[in-house]
């Protein structure tokens, strides 16, 4: 069953460390509760403002540069995320639609790539080895 990351965008208020109004806070708590009770919530976290953050730049010759926040020029800032588990992208989207946002806020929903999909990634070589093993065990 696929997992999804849902990114909540930040804004000037979240960057200023302003707590959301009580009603939104309560609505968010209720929403998280709904997700948890439905069994689809894997994780939900809020991120600190970029003033508490830093970046690491990787140059050639092993050069590393640390850039301290805040990142005032950034166009898109992530303020928080959910990790959900749902049977399809459509189901994940239906859950996200129930989040208590408004005013044109846009949330990005990204499926997490999984290495243990037992599908086409299972190479022909491994399939053959599996088949041989089954024959050996007399299955």
């Amino acid at each position, binding site marked *: *069953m696929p997992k999804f990351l849902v990114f909540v965008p930040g804004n000037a208020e979240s960057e200023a460390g302003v707590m959301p109004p009580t009603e939104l806070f309560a609505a968010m708590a209720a929403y998280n509760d709904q997700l*948890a*009770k*439905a*069994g*689809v*919530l*894997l*994780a939900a976290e809020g991120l600190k403002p970029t003033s508490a953050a830093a970046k690491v730049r990787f140059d050639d010759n092993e050069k590393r540069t640390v850039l301290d926040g805040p990142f005032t020029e950034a166009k898109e800032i992530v303020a928080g995320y959910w990790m959900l*588990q*749902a*049977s*399809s992208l*459509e*189901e994940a*989207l*239906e*859950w996200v639609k129930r989040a208590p946002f408004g005013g044109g806020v846009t949330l990005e929903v990204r499926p997490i790539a999984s*290495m*243990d*999909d*037992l*599908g086409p990634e*299972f190479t022909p070589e*491994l*399939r053959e*080895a*599996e088949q041989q*093993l089954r024959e*050996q*065990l*007399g299955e």
Partner: protein
Amino acid sequence: MGKATETVEAVWRMEAARVVAALARFTGDLGLAEELAQDALVTALEQWPAEGVPANPGAWLTAVGKRRAVDHFRRAETLRRKVGELGRELEIDGEGREDGAVDAIVEAVDAERSDTAIDDDLLRLVFTACHPVLSAEARVALTLRVLGGLTTAEIARAFLVPEATAAQRIVRAKRALADAGIPFEAPDGPERSRRLASVLEVVYLVFNEGYSATAGDDWLRADLCQEALRLGRVLAGLMPAAPEVHALVALMEIQDSRRRARTGPDGEPVLLLDQDRAKWDREQIERGLVALARADRAFVAGMAQTPDGVEPGTYHLQAALAACHARARTAEDTDWQLIADLYGRLVQQTRSPVVELNRAVAVGMAEGPEAALAITDTLTGLRAMQGYHLLPSVRGDLLTRLGRLTEARTEFERAAELTANTRERALLLARAAACEAEA
């Protein structure tokens, strides 16, 4: 058109349990409710692609189902009685035309649907679908259907049976409930703790079916682990005070965390102690440990109510055991003494010689092979252990560590004789040969 259908199906997955639960409450009949819910889904598939998903899809589906229920009762000429019953329950005036009374009832029932009421209905659904009068197979099929919202085709594929067989299991389950006169109710108090076992058994059965899926199987089978986890989390939300529920979730999370480590490159099974722990899903282990902590808190809270002493349940002990391994960064870091103690308590509850053998292995790690061998001595005479290859296999290992190689060889050879697994036999014979070489 495909995308729209997928959306309807996604919404169905989200709402199915609540819709069936509400309709079962309304009609008093789980079997009928399941059919009515299916009818509502068909209607949704017809209307939503064109009209869009309604703002409150659950309420929409339930309303359609209820109107169908009224039609059903009218056709069955039981409407008058039903209206009377429902009317009495809701303390509605029985005066006036039938239709008026019905509308008033539907409105009143709708108005009463608070979150707690919905949760109560879901609990009724869980305990009815998992009623012990049904076989495990029947409970699994019915639960996946009404609680999981899976289609008959999905259930069939997941359990490797023809679709007709899966459909039959559900039909027979509903009939068995009706024949036994099982009411749409959830048990209370001490009876709930007793009945909880048949509920958790269903969830763990689904999980184990998924866990046994191998590479190359239908992905729906492997998905059963996630389905079981989702059901477990739903139950944890409905029964937050029940330690065994949180413990089962913990156990499943931790077991599932090892999914990528438990098969080798040739598809052969890798024993836990030999697994590459970098492949364990540490996020999932964290979730498992959080669930175990909830189980511990719920257990302690429960102790306050039963001062005479309560023992932790078997899932709680198994989860604690799984957590011991999960917390160890390497096999060498494992807290074997704690594992031995936990197995000790599990033996007291299950009286199982296999569990006692596991305890012996742990004691062998914690205290040394001598003490462990003494435990296995008590098991060799048991009739239940006669055909069990792991007993001589463990003894062979312990004797090797004690330097008693001739005896060890005998045990390994006996174990090789007893196992039906070719690969395992080869491994045991190799160990026997190694003893001979060194003796």
